[in-house]
């Protein structure tokens, strides 16, 4: 699967490419809110007002990508939770009005497939359309779906819009806070990994890729990916090694590691196990830029493509500035669900 184009709205200024050109936002917040562009030219105001944040950010990424590329043959999204703000607004109405007469807007906007449906509607795309809600592996599931789609069309050019979205609302922040996923104290994202406490900070955003089975003029390739759940900590090394074996690669073939370390002392040791396998390799800790959320591996993939094309090199931690050709992403959520994504130029 070849990446022809990509775009993201994230807590960094990716929307105008300042982020890749070296402008890095220092964040001193509990919530890393997405820096949203003006949607004025993209979405009519009346529609914009009704859109929840997930749908708004998603469409804000889809429409520019669709505008500068041929109509894709399908649309595939991954999101753990979709439009949660709308979902809980509707829920609050249910409880507070004791199931009285409610307006359907929040309900319709809250369904996770609302984004893929809206993008299909706005771009008049009747093609393949799918939404994966596989928790913190939802983006990986979207990638798998895309690869299955391309497998059906050898020798015939096909293109897909593939991406992910996650929004922060007060409510899901509350739920995850009660679930002890966030830090109680505030440290800057500069110092995120040295905080020495449990939990992380919450991020959000939408990242999307225009994918093709035609390699011409591509920016990079999604070479392989693998997922697993409920691995034990001593199985993680084997998980990574077997993935490299399947790709007929050894650790020396990886030029740069992108790791999902999020500053949570209870689960960062898993990343350290993987770092030990690749001792001395250049590393990027992408959650320092955008925080923790369930489809953050889509952002990591975005960043990987930038690195493979000689951009955003300032984020590589150990000073190596050489342009990598093969990048491996390792991410986990709660140390329960694990994913590896391999990208190549």
């Amino acid at each position, binding site marked *: 699967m070849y990446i022809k184009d990509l775009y993201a709205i994230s807590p960094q200024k990716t929307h105008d490419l300042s982020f890749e050109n070296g402008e890095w936002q220092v964040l001193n917040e509990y919530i890393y809110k997405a820096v949203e562009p003006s949607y004025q030219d993209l979405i009519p105001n009346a529609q914009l007002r009704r859109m929840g944040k997930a749908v708004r950010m998603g469409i804000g990424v889809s429409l520019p990508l669709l505008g500068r590329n041929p109509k894709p043959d399908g*649309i595939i999204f991954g999101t*753990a*939770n*979709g439009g949660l703000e709308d*979902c*809980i607004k*509707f*829920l*609050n109405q*249910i*409880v507070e009005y*004791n*199931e*009285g*007469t*409610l307006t*359907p807007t929040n*309900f*319709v906007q809250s*369904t*996770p*497939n*609302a984004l*893929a*449906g*809206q993008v*299909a*509607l706005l771009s*008049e*795309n*009747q*093609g*393949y*359309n*799918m*939404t*994966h*809600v*596989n928790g913190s*592996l*939802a983006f990986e*599931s979207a990638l*798998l*779906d895309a690869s*299955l789609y391309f*497998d*059906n069309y050898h020798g015939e050019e096909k293109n897909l819009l593939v991406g992910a979205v996650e929004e922060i609302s007060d*409510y*899901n922040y*509350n*739920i995850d*806070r*009660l*679930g002890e996923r966030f830090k109680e104290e505030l440290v800057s994202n500069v110092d995120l990994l040295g905080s020495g406490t449990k939990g992380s900070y919450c991020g959000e955003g939408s990242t999307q890729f225009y994918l093709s089975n035609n390699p011409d003029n591509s920016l990079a390739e999604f070479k392989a990916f693998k*997922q*697993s*759940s*409920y691995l034990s900590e001593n199985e993680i090394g084997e998980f990574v090694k077997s993935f490299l074996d399947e790709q007929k690669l050894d650790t020396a073939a990886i030029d740069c590691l992108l790791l999902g370390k999020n500053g949570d002392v209870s689960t960062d040791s898993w990343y350290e196990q993987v770092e030990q396998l690749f001792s001395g390799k250049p590393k990027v800790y992408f959650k320092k830029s955008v925080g923790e959320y369930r489809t953050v591996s889509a952002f990591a993939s975005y960043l990987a493509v930038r690195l493979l094309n000689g951009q955003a090199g300032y984020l590589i931690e150990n000073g190596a500035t050489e342009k990598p050709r093969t990048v491996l992403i390792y991410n986990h959520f709660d140390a*329960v*669900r694990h994913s590896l994504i391999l990208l190549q130029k």
Partner: protein
Amino acid sequence: MTEIVVTGMGAISSIGLTIAENLHSLKHEISGIKKAKHFKSHYSDSLVFGEIDQSDESLLNELGLEKGRGFTRTTLIAIKAFREAVANARLSPEDIASTRTAFISSSTVGGMCYTDDLYHDANMQGAPSEYVKHYEGSDHALQIVRLYGMKGITDVVNTACSSSANAIALGARLLETGKVDRVIAGGSDCLAKFTVNGFNSLRILSEEPCKPFDANREGLSLGEAAGYVVLERRADVSDTSKIQAVFSGFGICNDAFHPSATSDDARGPRMAMELALKRAELNPVDIQYINAHGTGTPNNDVTESFAFSKLFNTVPHFSSTKSYVGHTLAAAGVLEAIYSILSIQNQEVYPSLRVEEPISEFPFRPTLNYTPGVAIGHVLSNSFGFGGNCTSLIFSACI
């Protein structure tokens, strides 16, 4: 093309806690849509539901699970149907756990089925509930992955009412491409205040049990169900006695018309059926029975009928088994796939119940009574969802 077969099925719905009980109700025209016994809502008295007649406590007990550990009703009914499906396919614990086994599930309400607990946690009204880490749409699947020690590919999809139909199609593609050797695919959705109020706010719920394809239909009845099928490549199945049907093809597309209604020309439903026929290398005339989406809303049944009229010179037997179980949302696709397979196995059509006056715009009418002795080689099963998601599946007799 790689032939994909169904080697196991499990289902729980308002017309039965097992496949055998579901079949008995289908044959005897026993509807499960009535006043709810277990589901508590403002609408419990004024509306009717396709409720599974088993309490959460009884499910926990039967499945040997501990109370207070965050098992939602979505999860409990999913585990029960999953357990029946893998036993039916005679999968060993090692088979289920294998990296060569994929699990593709689906749900719309997912872990958010206990509306009041979610309200409590989302608004931080005191100590967290037992469900605080179990609200995600994928939670039921993750619980099953944990309980069975599954090491292979897992996925959960949500394309509203076409969700589990898409889970089955995804599973077949994993088998065709050789990525795995067996797939357990389906979905689960339980009754929740969230969905009941959602559909009520759209004013598409019927006060009386729904009557799909009736001229005076007033809307849908909501139900709850879970269902799973086991899929394998035919060439890999050594014990051919467990082959229940062939999964011949699918069509997936988007209507791209409206967030919660089907286009008047039914371009999405029509395209989904055409794509499924093409993939199955079949013609409309080869289909002997259509298990329609048939929700009972004014919009769906007329547009779906219109699509039939355009696609088929002579419309074959068709019915909506939602007249038995209500609309079970994410689970509808797999439940109707299972009912379609039962139709093939028993060579009989389960009717659309309660149709008094068929829709007058079309010269064809649904099958109105239980009809045995019908030669059924191929069944088309439709699932259309909010967001324009349209999916058609084709199941065939094993010959």
